[in-house]
């Protein structure tokens, strides 16, 4: 595709038919994503969507950009490797609440700290959809809908936004799959943020959490972007989990990870110099034997 062509949202969709159940919230997320990409005018080959395993993690193949459908819980490190190695690309990591907060929780913590330039979009349905409906970290302690925890998980639900803030994320937002336009706007903002941007999307699982069809009535666009971490914390203390919008946007992006990439210069010469560091000649302070 030539850069000049103006692409529509549908141009960011592939021909592959989603495996999702009819009515699954993830359809709305796919729509919002394609809308956001079109809105930003990004060339599909400059975008990569990276995921783990779960219903939601099937998303990459339904787009026309580069995709990576990895293993359960590891979307973020794959995305980080790609973003660090190829900083000119637009990298979006995605997946479910189980993938991201349960098995992938450690990468979430450290991705927030590391602040590589990528967007992390979690489709949160408070359940493991793909494995037929077990409790996820965001399930309520008394949700007794799974045979694995017949009396409910019995433990406090995971608070994604608070954790992201504690861990150091610079951009934090919440969206709702039932509001594709709002979600597309939030996504576009997240993608444009020059660092790690986290976006929790409430995305109902029609099959194992049919009660989530009520989300529509519960959500309200209440967050206004705050630039101060402490204020954002205070705002969260009264959050009911259904407020949408951008909660926090750190004014300056933290520096890129570790040492900045240096110009490659003359590679052959550099390698030569490195090899010379090993020579015995160096041990007496000179540059080697050149007859």
């Amino acid at each position, binding site marked *: 595709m030539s850069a000049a062509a103006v692409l529509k949202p549908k141009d960011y969709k592939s021909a*592959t038919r989603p495996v999702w159940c009819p009515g699954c919230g993830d359809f709305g997320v796919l729509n919002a994503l394609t809308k956001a990409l079109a809105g930003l005018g990004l*060339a599909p*080959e400059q975008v990569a969507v990276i995921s783990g395993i779960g219903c939601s993690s099937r998303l990459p*193949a339904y787009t026309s950009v*580069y995709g990576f*459908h990895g293993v359960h819980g590891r979307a973020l490190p*794959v995305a980080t490797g790609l973003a660090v190695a190829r900083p000119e690309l637009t990298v979006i990591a995605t997946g479910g609440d189980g993938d991201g907060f349960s098995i992938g929780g450690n*990468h979430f913590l450290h991705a927030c700290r590391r602040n590589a330039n990528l967007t992390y979009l979690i489709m949160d349905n408070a359940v493991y959809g793909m494995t037929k409906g077990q409790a996820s970290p965001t399930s309520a302690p008394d949700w007794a809908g799974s045979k694995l925890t017949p009396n409910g998980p019995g433990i406090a639900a995971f608070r994604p936004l608070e954790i992201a803030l504690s861990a150091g994320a610079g951009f934090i937002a919440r969206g709702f799959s039932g509001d594709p336009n709002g979600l597309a706007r939030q996504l576009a903002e997240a993608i444009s943020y020059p660092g790690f941007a986290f976006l929790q999307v409430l995305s109902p699982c029609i099959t194992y959490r049919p009660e989530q069809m009520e989300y529509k009535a519960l959500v309200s666009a209440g967050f206004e972007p705050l630039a101060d971490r402490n204020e954002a914390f205070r705002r969260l203390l009264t959050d009911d989990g259904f407020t949408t919008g951008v909660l926090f946007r750190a004014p300056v992006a933290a520096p890129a990870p570790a040492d900045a990439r240096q110009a490659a210069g003359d590679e052959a010469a550099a390698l030569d110099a490195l090899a010379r560091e090993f020579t*015995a000649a160096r*041990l007496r302070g000179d540059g080697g034997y050149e007859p």
Partner: protein
Amino acid sequence: MTPSFSLALTGSGGAGVMTAGQLLLDAAALAGRYGLMARSFGPQIRGGEAAALLRLARRPVECPDDDYDLLVALDWGNIERFADELPLAAGAVIIADPGQGGVPEVIATQAGRIHEIAISQLARDIPGGRPNMVALGIAAALADVPGGAVETRVRQALARHGDESVAAAIACLAAGRAAALEVTGHGDPPSAAPSEDTVDAGAPGPHLDRWVLNGNEATGFGALAAGVRFCAAYPITPATEILEWLAGRLPRVGGRLVQAEDELASINMCIGASFGGVPALTATAGPGLSLMIESLGLAVAAEVPLVVANVMRGGPSTGIPTKSEQTDLNIAVYGLHGEAPHVVVAPTGVGDCAPTAAWAVSLAETLQTPVILLSDQALGQTRTIVDPPGGELARAGRRRYVARHDDSTETYRRYAMTADGISPMSCPGLPGGQYTADGLTHTEHGIPSTRAEDHVGQLDKRRRKLEEYDYGPLWGDLHGAGDIAVITWGSATQPVREACQRAEACGLAVRLVALRLLSPVPASELEAALGGVRACLVVEHNHSGQLYRHLRAWTELPHPTLAWHRPGPLPLRPGEILGALQGLHAQLEAAA
């Protein structure tokens, strides 16, 4: 047989034996010698007892000898911990400091000539003097390393500490040398007299182009030279030096290193970078490799090139992190779930680390597969004087393909069935090459599929690309032509090689096959190499004979083939392998 001289410097933490040992090795390099130095530490994190274990020779050596000709003890703190590691040669010289108390029984009972030198007193007598520099003077004198070379090296090393430090050190060297020659009898060092091939310390010459490095540094260099430009790191003994070496050097060639939160992250970061077209490597040891297993399977299925340099240490579990063992062959070859063929290689010595690392990178990139390089603590952490790699190092070359971007009728076939099993591979940024890499069973386009034709087709394709590839002569090294053969791999190669040389010297011709390619097993090459062999020995440094079982599984070995192996922590030594060879020979003779 290599005439060589082995010595140990021991002392408590802070005594500086490692510095002294390393300076001695370096000086030997300046004097045109070959040699190596291993380090051994007690259990204390810092400040415990330590031993520098050196071997010096006029011909290339890359493994420890059977026993030590010289022991210089700065003190005796917990020396019994090293007793196993310090077999003394008959007639070995033991230099003891009378100020440190009597010679402990584990040493005194060994057959050696004990000489007393008041090492610390000599140091105290010199303003700013340090006992380890006296010990260096002693060791250099008795190991016949020219004083000029030692002095050159010490001047250079201490220059930044100022002239006074240098002068004190030089005085210590001299005091040590004098004392050593005095107590042992002038001109009677246990090694041969200075031979003509000892280079004048000041003289430049081709020997100055030799490399003085350990296998970890060499591995990092080989990978970099082959094209690695991304590394994700999680520290672990004894692999950390590969990562640290790369951390300092990658930026010089436009590459990057990220410290990861764990090995699950580091392997997946490498996958991400490589998916992005940037050759990637990580280094780890057994526990970290275990954590990478699931994602290595992903790299196999999604066909993502990458290299894992696994530096083996005593196992299982946390085992003995500081000691060497060839114990991760099983997991490296068979550890992935499902049918996940990939490549496993191992360098056959410190000098082989750079070429093998480079080869690993080029195989990964060419074959679009993860490659596990099996190094070990002995290779990784033994500072060795080696000839720099002879030929060109291999370089990464990935098969790229970009769909014509006006060809919109078909999406990119990333996993197309090809005759050689290697599919076209695009990467983000290339227009028209978009696909989704997938660890699920997939079609040629990468779309998930549960159909038998896709599953079997892709399994066949991935096996085919590995089995039909021409690995060339690097699959293994052959030496000798006897009708008894030894098969070995990795760091065991060097002691085996020396054992074979000694056998040859006793009139027993042995054919040596050192495998560099461990998986897929180069069965036909191996069987050809063993043509006409009457009996075979498989030598390795582990408890169960992992290579032996692996070869039985995949090739027809000569009858009889005996497995000879033992675990760490003690290094393999040529003498014990020679014993095994002679045993096999005797058995054949008896049967004949």
